[in-house]
């Protein structure tokens, strides 16, 4: 494999061979994708969001197509933190040598703390991503990420029990994402991932019913890219900690744009669902896209737009 250092970035001192990370929930635990291609070309992987107990998630239908994206209301289906540690992480490690980002969700402060403590003890995990922005569960998830105070509280509590870099994954469903980002930074967050999905809805007009059983769900896909980019730009100009930019990225040019806005790394989400080779193709297309724009190294364009 040709090592192209022009693509590499550093995330809290952790070396990524390139900034491309499949977003949590759009790559399973990586093992299905390992059957398709060598996933070691990925900068890192953010695994499926994990909670203390196993969860089936929301009733089906959970998916609604939109004009330039989709709505999902999966509702954090996962096998629970213990199973993730005992089975999923070792399975992924069989195929993947690069950094693993463990994505943690919760329904209470205690749950976040307990899960993060457990995952912090796992050698196999390099970064902890705390999801305070899932729009698909009640009394948890997004509830923690929609006020600066509660987001800071989760950040602080998680930081108290962890030694690994902690990224807080933020919700766009707020009036002022900058104040929440700042609160997380002040509470000790090592980085931020943004954005999670936008709360959306579709109706089946023939049935006169919402398409997804949970009525509403998280909207993602190419349509949300401008919103994500704007939020990354705003937060990057207000915070010093690194940002993983996420939301509607589907091409090498999107990656460059998101990094110019201030992202150190980027996550590809919904695009993986329509094209299982999306991350691979974006990585392969990056050098040509950079050449066209006379970019020598991706590191040099992070936050270059003021």
């Amino acid at each position, binding site marked *: 494999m040709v090592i192209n250092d022009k693509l590499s970035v550093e995330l809290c001192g952790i070396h990524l061979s390139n900034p491309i990370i499949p977003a949590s929930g*759009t790559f399973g635990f990586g093992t*299905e994708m390992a059957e398709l291609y060598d996933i070691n070309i990925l900068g890192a992987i953010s695994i499926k969001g994990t909670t203390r107990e196993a969860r*089936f998630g929301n009733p089906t239908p959970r998916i609604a197509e939109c004009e330039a994206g989709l709505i999902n209301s*999966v509702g954090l289906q996962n096998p629970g933190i213990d199973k993730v540690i005992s089975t999923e992480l070792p399975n992924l490690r069989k195929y993947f040598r690069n950094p693993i980002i463990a994505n943690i969700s919760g329904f209470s402060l205690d749950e976040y703390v307990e899960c993060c403590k457990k995952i912090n003890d796992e050698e196999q995990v390099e970064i902890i991503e705390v999801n305070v922005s899932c729009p698909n569960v009640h009394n948890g998830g997004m509830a923690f990420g929609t006020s600066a105070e509660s987001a800071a509280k989760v950040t602080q509590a998680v930081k108290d029990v962890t030694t690994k870099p902690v990224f807080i994954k933020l919700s766009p469903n707020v009036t002022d994402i900058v104040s929440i980002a700042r609160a997380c930074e002040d509470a000790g967050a090592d980085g931020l991932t943004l954005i999670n999905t936008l709360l959306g809805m579709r109706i089946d007009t023939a049935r006169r019913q919402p398409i997804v059983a949970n009525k509403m769900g998280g909207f993602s896909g190419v349509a949300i890219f401008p919103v994500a980019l704007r939020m990354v730009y705003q937060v990057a100009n207000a915070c010093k900690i690194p940002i993983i930019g996420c939301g509607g990225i589907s091409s090498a040019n999107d990656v460059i744009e998101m990094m110019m806005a201030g992202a150190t790394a980027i996550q590809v989400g919904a695009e993986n*669902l*329509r*094209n*299982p080779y999306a991350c691979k193709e974006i990585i392969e297309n990056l050098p040509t896209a950079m050449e066209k724009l006379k970019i020598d190294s991706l590191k040099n364009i992070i936050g270059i737009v003021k």
Partner: protein
Amino acid sequence: MEKTLFKITSNKPLTKHVYEMCLSGDTSAIKHAGQFINIAIDGLYLRRPISICDYSENFLKIIYKVVGKGTEQMAAMLPNTTLDILVGLGNGFSINNCHKPLLVGGGVGVPPMYNLAKKLLAQGKQVSVVLGFNTQEEIFYYNEFVNLGANVYIATVDGSVGTKGFVTNAIETNNIDSDYFYACGPLSMLRALYDKLTIDGEMSFEERMGCGFGICMGCSCKTKHGNKRICKEGPVLKKEEIIW
């Protein structure tokens, strides 16, 4: 699973709303009858999952009903059009040591039964096929199943052809002797078969999918053997594991 380019060789209506599309391309990822493909369609965000009707080396046939934007676009596609398709998805039907399999298809649940019937007949089994439709105008593939050498029965809801009523009525009326069943069709049909047939069997289920290859958890269902993804551990579930 493989992501492959296929070329349409023919695309024609079988009934007012049901079309048959033949394609050429690499089918080596398809292992079992009852698997499905996921087709990328220009301008639509998600792929369209369609069951496989028949396949052989470099040949793929699907039968689909026009029900929305995606299938409307498909119906207008001309031969030589190239399609980006994920092939070899899902588990498909299992072939066991039964002697007298009963294959039940309802509406667009009929197509996956075709390749299955072929495979079972090739093993020398005595294959009975029951096809259910609403009315005479909707019937397709009766002759194709007869030509394979299966015993074919029809049920129509309005009684215009075959047994009046549902597939379960046709099974009773014709006193079909069988020791295992395979089914694909509307949920109400699957449920009726589950309740009325005393033999073991397996059924193919539908669900709205995100990816179609097991990474998004969009199409999960609960079974007696744990949570399953319709696109990955399904779409075929064994009768004994189904939770309604």
